């Protein structure tokens, strides 16, 4: 009988790791708090850099999970380290034991209402990146329906690189997501003026710069270097957005029909709580601390505990998938060595 490999989290990291572990002949068990697999990606419509449907990615991962034990709608009540592995009590009362444990716990999206000055949850015209993806998916959002959108703004770095919001980290994916979403809105509303308010544009990955150039050349999207300071509602039901136009060194304001806040990635607090139960190191930024940040990203400070994806820091989809594969292999080797 194979030993359980317990995977905490059924997002793309957990799914890919489970799929690889099955191929390696191991016995993965996924514990996922939501009632479905896919994590944040399941909330998304299309993924950069190819604007491929998020559903296609999940569709590609699901068939490989046949044979994995999956607990949906389940959380971990307690986690104990034993001599020969880890013991878990689940929220349904059942118990699990595994020699290896994989944290694929991902991130938590920054709660945009915490940046009170942006008025999320107060002004109808203000939504988040996730709200927009959901609207792309479902076409349902009372804030977006039935209104012509002629002027649209994006605020980069909402809850990222912001000590006041308790998160000094760059969330890495938002610059690219904002440009992707800006183009997607231009596709739907070709005559809309779209403004991206940014501090720095961090377009580091393959094809990202092409997206940026395309956004300027083909779609005429405006990039304004300046962090939005406040948002208020106008009499005619729009929002007026203030920022500094740092390139001209003057204050700037513009009235918009829609403002999209690029909420950033925060450490998942339930992962941190579990990590503390078995004394895993937590990094200064609140994410779980890898054994080292070059060759040991997926390794923890405890034997048998491995990491994949955004539990150790902000990650893109391909990085997450690569770490999941790498973790699966490392777990397989670990179990082999233990024999």
């Amino acid at each position, binding site marked *: 009988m194979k030993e359980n490999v317990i995977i905490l989290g059924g997002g793309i990291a957990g799914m890919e790791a489970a799929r690889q572990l099955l191929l390696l002949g191991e016995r993965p068990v996924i514990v996922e708090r939501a009632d479905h697999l896919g994590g944040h990606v399941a909330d998304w419509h299309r993924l950069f850099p190819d604007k491929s449907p998020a559903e296609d990615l999940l569709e590609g991962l699901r068939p490989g999970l046949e044979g994995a034990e999956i607990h949906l709608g389940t959380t971990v009540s307690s986690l104990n380290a034993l001599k020969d592995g880890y013991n878990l009590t689940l929220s349904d009362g059942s118990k699990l034991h595994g020699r290896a444990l994989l944290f694929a716990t991902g991130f938590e999206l920054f709660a945009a209402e915490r940046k*009170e000055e942006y*008025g999320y949850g107060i002004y*109808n015209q203000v939504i988040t990146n996730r709200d927009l993806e959901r609207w792309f998916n479902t076409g349902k959002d009372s804030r977006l329906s039935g209104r012509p959108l002629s002027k649209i703004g994006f605020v980069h770095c909402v809850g990222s690189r912001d000590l006041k919001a308790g998160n000094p980290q760059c969330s890495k994916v938002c610059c690219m997501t904002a440009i992707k979403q800006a183009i997607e809105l231009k596709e739907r509303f070709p005559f809309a003026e779209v403004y991206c308010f940014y501090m720095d544009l961090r377009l580091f990955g393959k094809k990202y710069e092409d997206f940026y150039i395309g956004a300027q050349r083909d779609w005429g999207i405006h990039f304004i270097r300046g962090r939005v300071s406040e948002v*208020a*509602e106008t*009499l005619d039901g729009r929002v*007026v957005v203030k920022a500094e136009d740092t390139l001209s060194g003057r204050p700037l304001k513009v009235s918009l029909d829609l403002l999209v806040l690029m909420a950033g990635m925060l450490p998942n607090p339930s992962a941190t709580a579990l990590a503390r139960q078995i004394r895993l190191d937590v990094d200064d930024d609140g994410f779980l601390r890898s054994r080292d940040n070059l060759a040991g990203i997926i390794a923890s400070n405890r034997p048998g505990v491995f990491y994949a994806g955004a539990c150790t820091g902000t990650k893109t989809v391909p990085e997450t998938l690569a770490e999941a594969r790498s973790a699966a292999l490392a777990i397989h080797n670990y179990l082999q060595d233990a024999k």
Partner: protein
Amino acid sequence: MIYQGKQKIWSDYQKEIPDDHWFYVRSCIRQNFFPASEAYFVKVVRDLLGRDLYETPHHTTCGGIAYHSDTIPQETAMTIVARQFSLMKEAGYKNLVTSCITSFGNYCEILETWREFPELEARIREHLWKACRREFDKPEYVCHASDVIYKLRNEIAARAKFRLVNKETGEPLRVVEHIGCHYNKMFPSKGVGGAEYPYVLCGMVESWGGQVIDYPERRHCCGFGFRQYLVKANRGYSMSNSHKKFESMEPFRPDMIITNCPGCPYFLDRWQYVVAETQGKTYGQGGFGIPVFTYEEVAGLVLGYDPWDLGLQVHQVAPEPLLDKMGVPFNPETKYLGLNKKDILRPSLPSGLKCF
């Protein structure tokens, strides 16, 4: 606008306001600008609602106005404040309530500084002892007088003779609420409702029947800014800030402005005159301005006190259009009769702003 979203923020920023036993400290300037506001605060809180409110003639400025005008260092302001605390200790009170917003900010800033730097507090204790042989305890609660009226707003509403409702149409009056910067922008958690969507005046307006309007420049400062106004060369800058607010609120057709700061109502009131004289523009209906009030004056009107007893004749912008809307009776003949019916003389009327 998602009203529930604001309610959620308001519930996040509720502060504890004691119900009784206050040590009241007055403002340096309010009795000149709004001669009856503080007197009516005392009258309403102590006489009408039966709370224990204590004042001492030995109390002085808190030093905040000089501190913010860059004429005294903070240590001096701290020692002055330490003396106020010693007066409070002497009188046996623990809840400080300030009439002035800058005092409120000054007290909060000093207490917060002492919390961060206890050695500074120790030094100030020494200064106070050397200067006047006094000792002090820090207050348990520091509130602004508008917090107290906010706390008592429903008791006032229960006794209301008039409401913030247009008598003719039955519609709620459209009210601009303006918060003094030192109330909540220094320490958002110390203001009811926080810094972005303050509730302290909204709560009063809602309780007394009015409707608050949220216009784009709502958060903007009145422009007083101490040195901006006190130095004549900067005065145009001060006015420009008020002007920016008037321009932003104008399309919302406000019936009145309610404020909780000494400076804001003064400047929002007087600048309407200067803007009218220099730009030829007025913001109220029919050539009038938008009447500006302190929250005590509004509470007084709601409770049915005589507008001239409330000191409304010293406002630059005529309050009469609002009194008519509310249905508050007033006698134009007695407008310029002061205390004991003494004739306080009639001001000359401006050319650009309609007044009585």
